[in-house]
């Protein structure tokens, strides 16, 4: 395969720092450094998105100004908020189920980060490219619901428990349309490897006035793209599917009893999940890091921020669905549509090929 010949980030780091001459230890160190780089890149995204961009975007939609006191455009609020939140007192509710209560935030935050291992971010920022890439990314993203359920149950609070239950009901209802829709893309690529999926999309679809349009699967199969974006919104628990934390019904859902650094980790995990969802959408449907003029990494970041902007837009524009409506939309609507999409795609590909 051609894909395997491309160097991945660990080898690049090893080559750049001259670590490849130290054998196994050097390789391991280079791999760790590469993973640290990718992890921090994504954490930097969430750092900008959580305390600053989210406020600014919502404020723009509701005609307010939002943070503007510290630094240019209020950007230094990121530092101020980080210090403020980390220096809050940690209150453990009585009756809390202790090990689970402490583990839940770690599970949520680290499971989201794990998914980025197989995402090609352009300019060689690609940690690993295993053959099962797409299946791996869905498997890892699914771990978060265990963390949410742990937090919800261990908090010893009715609202947390309900929030945790809702989070599971929602994640499992929309996981299947999500995976089935992604499978309809795999029919075209014939591979689960992320780099092959991106390569397949680089081929020109058609040429309009000298401009060749790449065969991004969002253009090839727009129906699947819309289905995937909607299922992804439910998967990351954003409006209109943010029932697990519905503040008007169950306080804050699974994170009601969390404070201080545990709350930060939950919050971080959620934002990492939005970006992971954006990264999956970008890789599977929007040609990965491909784009004109600008380097690949910049395009990749633009694409995942576009998905983030979409979630924040919906947050300001669309009302929340009730939990019973959510279950019905998932099992009666999305599931049936995603199966129709899979079967139709298979038939069309079968007739064309």
């Amino acid at each position: 395969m051609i894909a395997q010949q491309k160097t991945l980030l660990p080898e690049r780091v090893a080559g750049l720092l001259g670590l490849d001459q130290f054998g196994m230890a050097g390789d391991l160190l280079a791999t760790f450094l590469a993973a640290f780089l990718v992890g921090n890149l994504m954490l930097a995204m969430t750092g900008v998105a959580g305390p600053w961009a989210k406020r600014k975007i919502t404020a723009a939609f509701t005609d307010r100004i939002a943070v503007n006191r510290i630094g240019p455009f209020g950007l230094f609020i990121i530092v101020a908020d980080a210090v403020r939140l980390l220096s809050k007192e940690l209150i453990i509710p009585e009756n809390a189920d202790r090990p689970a209560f402490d583990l839940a935030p770690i599970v949520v935050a680290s499971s989201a980060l794990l998914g980025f291992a197989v995402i090609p971010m352009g300019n060689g920022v690609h940690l690993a490219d295993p053959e099962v890439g797409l299946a791996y990314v869905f498997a890892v993203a699914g771990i978060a619901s265990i963390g949410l359920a742990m937090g919800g149950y261990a908090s010893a609070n009715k609202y947390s428990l309900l929030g945790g239950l809702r989070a599971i009901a929602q994640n499992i209802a929309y996981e299947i349309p999500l995976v089935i829709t992604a499978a309809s893309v795999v029919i075209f690529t014939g591979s689960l490897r992320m780099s092959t999926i991106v390569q397949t999309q680089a081929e020109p679809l058609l040429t309009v006035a000298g401009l060749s349009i790449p065969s991004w699967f969002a253009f090839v199969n727009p129906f699947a793209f819309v289905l995937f974006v909607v299922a992804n919104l439910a998967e990351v628990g954003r409006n209109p599917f943010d029932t697990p934390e519905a503040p008007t019904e169950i306080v804050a859902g699974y994170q009601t009893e969390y404070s201080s650094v545990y709350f930060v980790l939950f919050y971080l995990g959620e934002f990492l999940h939005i970006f992971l969802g954006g990264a999956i959408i970008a890789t599977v449907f929007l040609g990965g890091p491909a784009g004109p003029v600008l380097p690949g990494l910049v395009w990749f970041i633009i694409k995942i921020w576009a998905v983030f902007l979409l979630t924040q837009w919906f947050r300001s524009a669309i009302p929340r669905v009730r939990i019973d409506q959510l279950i019905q939309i998932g099992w009666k609507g999305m599931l049936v549509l995603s199966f129709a999409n899979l079967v139709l795609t298979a038939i069309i590909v079968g007739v064309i090929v």
Partner: protein
Amino acid sequence: MNQWIAVGALGLVGLLIPLGMMAVSSLLRPSVPEDSKRATYESGEIPTGTTRIRFNIQYYMVALLFVVFDIETVLIFPWTVMYRNALEGGATLTEVLVPMLVFVGILVVALAWAWRNGAVEWARSPQQTRSVTNEQR
């Protein structure tokens, strides 16, 4: 080098960063032990009843359905991977498509059965059903 080592390294980073944040926070934050603020939060009211409430049976129903369909997605993935290659390799459409259609068809029948039995309908207790009919009157 094995690629999964890189995945493991990211897992390690994903574990170390939260732990590091916890360590930093434990150095920064105050500790003012007091019992009343540890009470279960119910919007400032005195907490009522127990936490281990009875919740809607619907959550079990959808979880059971999920197990069926999740295994099915696992079985669909290998088929999607080989589908196009098999067609380009000269296999006929009936050889590669029809078995899968039968497989998906059986599952769709199962979904229709669950649908008819109300497994994907939000379950109401008899009490709730009564209050709904009262509202309609």
